[in-house]
């Protein structure tokens, strides 16, 4: 006797989703139907034979598809973008800061930023000029004081030097003066003698002159008398 339910009975036996009631009805049918019982035995034997299959390890292969790898690569530039452009952006910012004369000051009031020539810079320049002027004045005063002190020291030194010189050369100077006076006296005596002799010669010369004049007068008188 052929059972029309065998295929369904066999299929139901391989179905894990049967309810307890369905499973009980199945068991009752299989117990009563030899064909289904034999068919179940055969299919279970076949299934057992198939389950002898041993899992074969998967060979090495490219698991990540190219599309996903490209997507992954495309997502990386987020990092490399910054590493690529960050130094350039920093350099531009610094250049801009230099051009705009940006001044950053960190103090008790926090961070202060100023652009262009700030009043603070002007204040600093004025303070520097004042400081320079004060320094210059102070240097001049110091130089004057030094000059005065130096002059005093030099005067004192000169006096001391003169005193020392006078002390050292006083005696020799006295002697030299005496020698000079003696020399002068000798020269004066010698000049007096020379002067006396000159006067004498002049007197002698004058006497001769007078005699010549008298002779000339005599001659003139003689000549006059003859003419008359």
């Amino acid at each position, binding site marked *: 006797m052929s059972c029309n339910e065998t295929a369904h009975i066999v299929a139901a036996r391989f179905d894990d989703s049967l309810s307890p009631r369905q499973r009980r009805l199945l068991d009752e049918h299989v117990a009563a139907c030899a064909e289904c019982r034999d068919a179940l035995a055969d299919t279970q*034997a076949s*299934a057992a*034979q198939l389950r*002898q299959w*041993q*899992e074969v390890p998967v*060979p090495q*292969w490219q*698991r990540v*598809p190219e599309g996903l790898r490209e997507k992954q690569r495309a997502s990386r530039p987020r990092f490399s973008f910054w590493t690529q452009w960050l130094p350039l952006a920093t350099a531009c910012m610094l250049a801009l800061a230099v051009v705009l004369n940006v001044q950053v000051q960190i103090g008790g009031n926090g961070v202060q930023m100023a652009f262009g020539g700030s009043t603070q810079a002007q204040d600093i320049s004025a303070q520097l000029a004042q400081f320079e002027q004060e320094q210059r004045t102070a240097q001049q005063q110091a130089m004057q004081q030094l000059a005065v002190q130096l002059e005093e020291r030099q005067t004192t030194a000169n006096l001391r030097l003169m005193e020392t010189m006078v002390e050292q050369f006083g005696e020799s100077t006295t002697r030299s003066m005496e020698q000079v006076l003696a020399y002068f006296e000798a020269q004066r005596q010698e000049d007096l003698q020379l002067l006396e002799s000159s006067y004498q010669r002049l007197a002698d010369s004058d006497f001769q002159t007078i005699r010549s004049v008298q002779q000339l007068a005599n001659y003139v008188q003689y000549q006059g008398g003859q003419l008359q």
Partner: protein
Amino acid sequence: MSLTDQDEALISAALEGSARAWERLVRRYEGRVYNFALRMTGNETEALDLMQEVFLGVYRNLQRFRGDSQFTTWLFRIAHNKAVDMNRRKYLLTPLASLGGAEQTEDEVLEQLHDETQEQNPLTLLDTEQRNAGVMKLLNRLSWDQRLVVELKVFQSCTFEEIAEMQDISANTAKTRFYTAMKLLKTQMEQTHVV
């Protein structure tokens, strides 16, 4: 976290572009898919091609997975479709014809499966090769549709409703096809004195 939750987390991360999440998801199921492909094609090269096609299809359609069914069900629906496509391109039938013929000896089947298991322990390798060769000889006796039904029911534990949906047939047809295939296998086993 359940397996389904882990799958969904990995899928979400993969959709956001995480290659690592995708790779973890693939590694979780590649063994099942590869052995499915190996049983359906009968050789490593085509099995590898089929597995790559399956996961490429999964990746391309990942946004369409809404979690209405289990990820494995969705995965093997794609695997089933890719296997059918491959069969239609005549890449699948040729090795099946050579494997399925009565002329092919068990040594030839063993040689064909040798590449897949050559890195294992020699004793394990021999046992694995013999067992798998026996299974392949049985499967080669089935038609393509019968083979798919048996594969999806015995190895992938799909319901008949899911199988029917994949193959665009009724559940009753799927059940009958399964029963016919199993009966044929039993007959083949008796002829080759397996049992």
